[in-house]
């Protein structure tokens, strides 16, 4: 479906993406996470054809996206700060989108409007931030795109609205295999909706895959020992986070659960508990392990 091959992009001699390879299969909901300035929005802009890479290609079903109306007709990009024409109402914006997207679904538009009431005669620029985002999502979903790119688009929505929109997206995915790529800092939210996730850091996609698979790869344990433990006993484990209070250790370890368990048990701990680990924690520990925010 969407493919980035050896994509490099820089802004003013500052490298943002370096030889990025990434693939998004059809019908998936991909969450894009990464620290600020990692290049999440850049990837979305590259996929939507707003910008072009210095090298490499971005394709949709093997067709280059940049300046390719046929490919772009299937993609809708909703940025973090949606733009509306000066003094435009939602009706005018609908007309604007209808000009370019033959797939625009009037029924869907009406359905969304009924579900998310928006004053149709009022100028959008007079709306609140949340209302503006709501309008953006109504228009984006009405376009009926094959690929929906959402750049932190849920931020600013109230919880009810957020939930309803998620349902809409889920429905669209199951009805017609719409592909969604969402960039967000809210990992709890991504965890709810995404089936796949990618972590962008240090100009590359450092981690990408099914949410469940990723979650299965990270494990959190609390182990305590009667005597002072020689930490050499943890050797061989890929510990990405470690906390120690006396003889009690809290460890976040990457790898096979069986192997980890076997090694920890071999140390004969007095306390041995496997703790739950959510996506946000995984992201935080993984980024920490990569040196992000460690100095503070």
């Amino acid at each position: 479906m969407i493919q980035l091959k050896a994509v490099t992009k820089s802004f003013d001699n500052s490298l943002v993406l370096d030889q990025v390879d990434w693939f998004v299969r059809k019908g998936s909901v991909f969450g894009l996470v990464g620290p600020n300035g990692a290049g999440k929005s850049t990837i979305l802009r590259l996929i939507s054809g707003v910008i072009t890479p210095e090298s490499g290609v971005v394709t949709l079903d093997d067709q280059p996206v940049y300046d390719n109306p046929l490919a772009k007709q299937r993609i809708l990009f909703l940025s973090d700060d949606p733009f509306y024409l000066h003094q435009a109402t939602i009706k005018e914006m609908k007309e604007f989108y209808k000009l370019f997207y033959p797939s625009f679904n009037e029924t869907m538009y009406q359905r969304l409007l009924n579900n998310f009431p928006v004053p149709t005669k009022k100028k959008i620029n007079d709306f609140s931030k949340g209302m503006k985002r709501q309008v953006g999502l109504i228009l984006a979903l009405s376009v009926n795109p094959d690929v929906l790119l959402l750049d932190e688009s849920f931020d600013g929505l109230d919880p009810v609205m957020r939930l309803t929109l998620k349902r809409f997206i889920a429905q669209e995915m199951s009805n017609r295999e719409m592909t969604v790529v969402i960039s967000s800092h809210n990992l709890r939210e991504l965890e709810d909706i995404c089936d796949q996730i990618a972590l962008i850091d240090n100009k590359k996609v450092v981690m990408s895959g099914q949410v469940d698979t990723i979650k299965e790869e990270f494990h959190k344990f609390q182990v305590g020992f009667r005597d002072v433990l020689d930490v050499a006993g943890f050797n061989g484990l890929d510990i990405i986070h470690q906390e120690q209070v006396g003889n009690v250790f809290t460890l976040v370890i990457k790898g096979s659960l069986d192997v980890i368990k076997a090694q920890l048990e071999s140390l004969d701990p007095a306390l041995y508990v496997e703790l739950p680990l959510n996506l946000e924690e995984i992201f935080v520990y993984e980024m920490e392990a990569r040196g992000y925010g460690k100095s503070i």
Partner: protein
Amino acid sequence: MENLFRARINVGFFRFLIKRNTRLMILTTVAMIALYPLFAFTEFVFNGTYSQTMFNIGRGFQLAVFFVSLVIVPFVIFSYLNSKKSLDVYHALPITRKDLFLTGLVASIVVVLVPFLLIYGVGWVYNIMVVPGVDNTRIFENLYYSLALSMAITLPFMFSMMNTGTSVDGFLYGLIIHLIPMIAYGTYLVFGNTVLLGFRAPTNNTFLLFTAPLWSLFELNLNTNLVYPNPDLVALYWFFMSFAMAWLVLYFYKIRRSEKAETPFTNNKFYPIIVSMFILIVQVFFYSTFTLLTDGRGLDLRTLIFPVFFTFVGYMILDVIANRGFKNFTKAFIKFAILTAISLTGFIGATLTGGLGYTNYVPNPSNVEKVEFLINDELGLFSPAYTSYIYNTTQGILAYEDDAEIAGIIEFHKSILERFDELGITSNSYNFGENTSITSSFPFKLSPWVTSQVQFKYTHNNGSTTLRSYTIPVAWTDTVLPLSVSKPNLMNRYPHLSQSAKVTSLSYTPAVMNIKTPLDLSKTQSLFDTYIEEYTRLGSKILEGDQLVGYILSEVVTTNEFNNISSQALPVFASFTNTLALLNPQAVNISDSLVFEFVRPSANDNPAEFYIQSFDGNLRYWNVDSSKEFATFTLTGSEMMQLLPYLTAHHVNEDLVGLIKVNPQFSLGVERQTNFVFYSLLEEGRDTLNTLLNEKVPVFKTFDQLYFNYE
């Protein structure tokens, strides 16, 4: 260019843009209607008459509004370029950049042209209703000029938009791009006139018509006398140039970095190139202007320090705008220093080397095929005595193709340069009035401020041309004085002697112009051939003084566009024996009822002030003090008979005896300033004159009384 022609207008989006900009169109329509037809119509309503002045002012306003619309509208249509979040929408749309660009461009033009055409239509109806003999051709020509130039006006701003990230920067540098050709041309003129001795400014603004669309818009629409270059072709040129410009703008649009919107420049090379070019041109303009203002003093600190200071301030202002602050001040200072070093090196180098040899260049005679030589002198030696609208700009140009004559002209050219060199003059901005060391072998002393424009146009063997023009004291024409009585000058002065004019009647009159005898028209050619042959043979002897016998008067219709030259008077001298044989003049008999006047110069008078050299008898007089009086004496017909052998014209003499004023008894029909004819007297007639004036009491007259018979 292929990209441009493959682009397609997105009709739906086009309609959408037009609909969204309807209010802007209404606003423009109201502004134009108030400033153009309504402006003129109000005048008509209040005064009941049509006022051309009001209408012209209105047209000027209308063009200004048209220009402003052409500037503003693209900024409105393409406003999305300067906002990152709008670019996220527009550039994600399923439309190619070239289609998006073309649709926007055409929509911009339509948004401007709809009000313009509407108002033009209203203005036209007003013209038909109110203006007597309305010039429809002119009206539609103007419309054609405006339409043809519309894209060329708007595209430089769009080019700027494609390289900048904000509207303010887009507008500022768009304006600079529009101004650069005009400032560059102004610099070229001031630099040439100041630094390049011999530089001649072009007589028209062809350069600007082809490089500055803004200039062309106003010039083509407002200058009703423009003949060359053909205004229709200039407009057509801009129409086609617009496509090249659109292609360039499209290229920059395609490579425009969306992510750099909202920053001053989306193209890092744009600002340094445009601003460096602008500052360099402005610096040279200021150096030249300040040199000019110091009366050709040449290079000194004052001519350089102020331009550097002014441009420094300008550069820093531009830098502060570009960087939105003073953070780049040191770098800007260094860049300015480099630019100044370049411009100063260039300017000083050009000045010291005389424009890299431009000023000292005189062609080798063996390389010259033809010389076109022109002297516009106040004495009228080389140009017709009385110039008026009937003479075109080529009048007075003497063409020489003979090797010896070419060599003579080149020697004259050299002598001018040597004399400039002796006086230490290196530029055109020199006031001869301040100089007292001008030497000359001219027959009489001339004030240094009596100057003449001399122009040399050399056509080289390879077809290239060299043009030089100098303002020199007339006294410096001493070496080429014989050319004033050369055949080319004769043919130039009297076009009917060549094939370019048709003679419709021919007559002869004696110098006192009391009678006119018709001549046989069928013998015109043989008479003229004889006259030319004798004139050429006598050459510079004419300058030494010869008795003026009479004139051959011709009614002429020219075969070129200047067909309003009505008549010509050819002087016939006593030494033109063959011509006189053909004319067979009857003995002159002057009635005593005819009165003549003699004007005696006072001891203080400069003979030059009394110099009468024109064949048609005009008094060449300048620096007239209206209160100054001349001593005049009345002469009877019989007294005049005694002076006839001593009458002359075109006589250059240091010791002027005086002037004889003759009142022609018939209309000469020649373009002249006075009805009277003035001759000078040959030295040989001084005794006879003194005898005649003995016991006569002078009557003192002012110049106007003498020249025009004013009371």
